[in-house]
Every structure is written in structure tokens, then in C-alpha cells.
């Protein structure tokens, strides 16, 4: 009965993703096409014949609407076409090259953020209005307020230039080169999760069943672990969707500062060079990732939260 409700809810949500995806592709496509300047504009204009050949090869000579439907058809079979700037590369290949790097940094940052964020939040909630609480929340506010691109140079200066403990940038899949980018990326998310956890933990600790548990004489550690943790973490779970979007956006900056060959740096290079297909490919790809993750988080939330049951038709 309950399972069925969730499944039906899931299918409904999945169907409702379609207009979102369509809109994503449409906006991206038309926005970049009305842009002045094209991928083959350079300081030295190309001879007209070559230009015409290039346009024909990339179907740029067709009417816009026809190009749009061609592109939609391509997307359906997950083909983002060739990159205009990186000759001999298709966008698919670039994504396949860049995404594993970005995924590694983003995934590690997410794990780090979850572990530290919830621990700090719980510690602050348990000692509400104490020095620990104020310290943790002051730190969290700092984490939210200091932008990534300020933290990153500061960390490089401290740990790479002055102390010389870690490399300042670059990428070779080694742990040393991962530490600074992952920490930088995780810091604001740690801060946000800590604030969320503290708030919801305080609320949960005030509820009747926690008082009952305490009255039974259960030790605090057990109350937290067995009764308070799960409901307190629900807001954090629902924050995971926006957090992923934030991490992806942040990775654009982080990859640039630490010279990491991830998808974010391809995106910025593509944006600065009007590489239509690459930019669209990345926007759509990340859009799909964010939308799907939101969907998963939504289901996870429904599954974890006993108060939400999708039995009745909404």
C-alpha cells in the first residue's frame, strides 16, 4: 500500500521532469543561437567558400527551427555533436574526459560536507547557547559568507606557497592534489549543513518522544543515535539536491583556480570562445544531473519521512 504510493509518486515525478528537460534544452539552444558572433569568427575572416563548407558541415546554413529539431533528435540518442573549438573532439568525448575528474572532486566534497556538517551541527545543538555553539555557528556563517574564490587563493597561499606542504594546482589523480580543491569546495556546504542540522536537531530535541526517551533514562548518546538522528537529518537530505547544484557551480571556479581539467573548466573555456555545442552540451548534461539528483533526493526523502505518504492523489 505504502510502497505503491511511493512508486506512483515516483512515476508521476519522472513524467513531470520531461517539460523541465525540454525547456532546458530549448532555452539553451535558442539563447546561444541569438548570440552575436559565431564559432568561426576570427581576427582573419575565412574565405567565403571555406566558410560555406564549414557552415554546411555543421548544418549552420539550415533554418533555425530545423537545426533545433535536429539537435533535439541528437540529444535523444545522447549525441551532443562535435566541439567547435577542440578540433577532432566530440562534446561526448570531452564530457567523458572531464566529468570523472569533476565527479571525483564533487563526490569527495559531498561526503566531507555531510560528515563534518552534521557532526558540527549536532555538537552545536547539544550545547545550545554555549561557547561551542556560538563558535560553530560563527564559523558556519563565515563559511557561508566567504566566497570560494577567496578561500581558494588564501589556501593556496598558506599551504602551497608559504608552507609548501601541498601542490598549488594541477591534476594527476593523486591525493595531495585533491586535498585543497575538495576542502575548498566542501567548506560552504559544511557550513550550510551545520546550520541546518543544528536547527532541526534543536527542534527534534524539544519533541515529546525525546522527552519520553529521556524520562525512561536512556543515555543521551543512545537517544541521539536511535531517536533523534533520523528526523533531524531529514532537512539535510532535502538540501542534498540544491547542494549538488551548488557543488557543480562551485567546481567551475575551483577547477579554474586549481587548473583542474574537469568539466567546469571546459565550460568556461567554451563560454569564452563561443563553442556552442560544448556549452550547450555541458549545460544540458549538468541540468540533467541536477534534475535527476533532485528526483532521487525527493524519493529518498519520501521513503525516510514517515509523515509523508503519497497514498492520496494530489
Amino acid at each position: 500500500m505504502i510502497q505503491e504510493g511511493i512508486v506512483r509518486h515516483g512515476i508521476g515525478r519522472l513524467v513531470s521532469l520531461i517539460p523541465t528537460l525540454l525547456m532546458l534544452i530549448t532555452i539553451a539552444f535558442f539563447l546561444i543561437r541569438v548570440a552575436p558572433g559565431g564559432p568561426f569568427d576570427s581576427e582573419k575572416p575565412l574565405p567565403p567558400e571555406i566558410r560555406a563548407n564549414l557552415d554546411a558541415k555543421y548544418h549552420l546554413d539550415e533554418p533555425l527551427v530545423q537545426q533545433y529539431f535536429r539537435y533535439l533528435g541528437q540529444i535523444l540518442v545522447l549525441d551532443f555533436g562535435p566541439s567547435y573549438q577542440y578540433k577532432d573532439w566530440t562534446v561526448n568525448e570531452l564530457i567523458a574526459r572531464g566529468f570523472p575528474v569533476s565527479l571525483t572532486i564533487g563526490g569527495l566534497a559531498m561526503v566531507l560536507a555531510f560528515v563534518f556538517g552534521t557532526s558540527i551541527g549536532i555538537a552545536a545543538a547539544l550545547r545550545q547557547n554555549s561557547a561551542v555553539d556560538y563558535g560553530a555557528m560563527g564559523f558556519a556563517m563565515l563559511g557561508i559568507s566567504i566566497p570560494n574564490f577567496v578561500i581558494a587563493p588564501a589556501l593556496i597561499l598558506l599551504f602551497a606557497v608559504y608552507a609548501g606542504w601541498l601542490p598549488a594546482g594541477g591534476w594527476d589523480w593523486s591525493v595531495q592534489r585533491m586535498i585543497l580543491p575538495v576542502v575548498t569546495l566542501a567548506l560552504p556546504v559544511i557550513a550550510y549543513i551545520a546550520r541546518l542540522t543544528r536547527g532541526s536537531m534543536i527542534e527534534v530535541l524539544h519533541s515529546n518522544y525525546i522527552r519520553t526517551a529521556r524520562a525512561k533514562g536512556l543515555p543521551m548518546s543512545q537517544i541521539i543515535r536511535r531517536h533523534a538522528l533520523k528526523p533531524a537529518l531529514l532537512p539535510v537530505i532535502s538540501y542534498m539536491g540544491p547542494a549538488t547544484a551548488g557543488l557543480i557551480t562551485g567546481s567551475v571556479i575551483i577547477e579554474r583556480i586549481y587548473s583542474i581539467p574537469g568539466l567546469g573548466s571546459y565550460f568556461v573555456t567554451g563560454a569564452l570562445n563561443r563553442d556552442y555545442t560544448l556549452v550547450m552540451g555541458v549545460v544540458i548534461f549538468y541540468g540533467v544531473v541536477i534534475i535527476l539528483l533532485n528526483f532521487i533526493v525527493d524519493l529518498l526523502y519520501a521513503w525516510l519521512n514517515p509523515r509523508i505518504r503519497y497514498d492520496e492523489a494530489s
Partner: protein
Amino acid sequence: MQLPPKETLLAMAATETADDDPFAAALAQEPVRGRSLWSDAWHRLLKNRAAVTSGVIMIVMVLMVIFGPMLSEWSGDYTDWDHTAAPPSLETGHWFGTDAVGRDIFVRTLEGGRISLLVGVVATLVSLIIGVSYGAIAGYYGGSTDKLMMRIVDIIYALPFMFFVILLMVVFGRNILLIFVAIGAVNWLDMARIVRGQTLGLKNTEYVEAARACGVGHWAIIRRHIVPNLIGVVMVYVTLTIPQVILVESFLSFLGLGVQEPMSSWGALVNDGAQDMESAPWTLAFPAAFLTITLYCFNYIGDGMRDALDPKDKS
């Protein structure tokens, strides 16, 4: 405003719950003696030391940004070849030092601050206007209008926001007007959702019903009875949106997609500073500090206002 004696404050705290009454908010428009929602909120805000300190710092910051550059003997685009990449010093008059081409960091930081703060305020206003009207209309009309309008918001919400701002900047070129509009146009969604939720609650209140019974038109009701009662929520949200917008602008400028030379903003200056941070760390430190302090203070003011205007939330 003067703080009332402690007894009064205590009495106020005791009657806090009474302020949830929407009538109190409506009455606040009249010069009523006693404790309106607003004066209560104001006193609660004044008791919040972090928020008050932040407010004072922000006033100083705004004054500095407006008048500070006049105090210096240098101008922002002047190249002082005798002092390139010079450290901060009182003797040369370069209080925050100079960058690699000899421009004064003090003046550039403050002039960049003008742009950053201006973007913060203007783009927030754009999102405010779109968000409030959209949310109020959706919430007030309700039914299928509301469903459709909120469905559109849901769809846009799921899009990767930052990437779209970048796309907009790439497509339409980098000019400051577009920055205002682009950031504002993508940032109104939260505002619309919050306002819609509030409106849904407000439209079933007795006084709106009374107005409708008197034959007041839809627009007049929205304008005179709904929107004024949204002001509290909206103010809190505006304070929290400003730092977000400043952050987005700095993010764009940092990537080289925001404001362009000779104009500057804190994000662009941090980007410049990050290039030379090994030889001239002050070029990074000062703009970064100004940006961070501003964001920090705005967040504290917003938090404080939320606590002050929403006593229910206080545990």
C-alpha cells in the same frame, strides 16, 4: 529610536504571541500608540547584538564606498610608475598598496565596492518586483492560474541557474545593465514562492473578505491589503538576497564574465589579486576582505531580521 525600559521589554516579550494576528500588521500602518508588530520587531532587532554591529559596519561601508575615494590623492585609473606593486604605506599615500601596474588599491577597492553594492541593490530590486508581483498574483487568484504559474516556477527552478547567467553573459555581451537584469531575472523564484505562500494565507483573512464584500476590486485588494502585509517577509528575504546577488556578480567577474575594465568590482579585483598574490598579497587581501565583510554582515542582518519579525521561530 530609544530603547524602552526593561520592564516594558519584558511585558512585550510576554505578549509576543499576540503579534501573529494579521490585524496587528494592518494596524501598523496607522499611528497607533503602543506595540505594533513593527516596533516590537524593531526592539527585538536592536537586542540582537550581531545584527546591530553588522548594521553599523554596513553603514560605515556604504559611506566609505561613496566618499572614501575622495579622501585619497590618487584616482582609480591613474598609473603610478614610481610605485608598482608597492606594499601598503602611509608615506606614498597608497594606503592599501598598489597593483602590478601601479594603480592604487585603496581607491580601486572602494570604487569596485560601488559597483558590487549597486549590483546587489539593483538586481535585488529587479527580483523583488518580478517575484512579488508574480507570487501575489498566483497566490491571490489561486486555482488553475496558481497551479500553472507555480509549475513554471518549478520548471525554471530545476534549471542550473549559474550556467544560465553565464550563458546570458556570453550571449549578450558583458555590460553592467545586463548583469542587473540577468541576475535579477533568475533570482526571483524564491521570492515568488514565499510571497505566494503568504498570499494564500492572507486572502482568506476576514479583512480581505470584508474588502471583497464592500466591492473592492482585485487589484485594489492586492495593492492595498495583500502587498502591505507581505512587507515583513519580503524585507527579510531582500536582506538575504543582496549578499547572494553580490556573490553571483563577483563570481561572474572573477571568471572574467562580469564587469569590464576600466570598471571594476570586488570579484574582478579578487581575480586580479589572485594572479599576483605571491608577489603582492595585499592586492588580494583588501578586496577579498571588503567583499567577505559585506557578505558576512548582510547575512547577520538578514538572520536578525528574520528572528525579529518571526517570533514564532524562536525556540
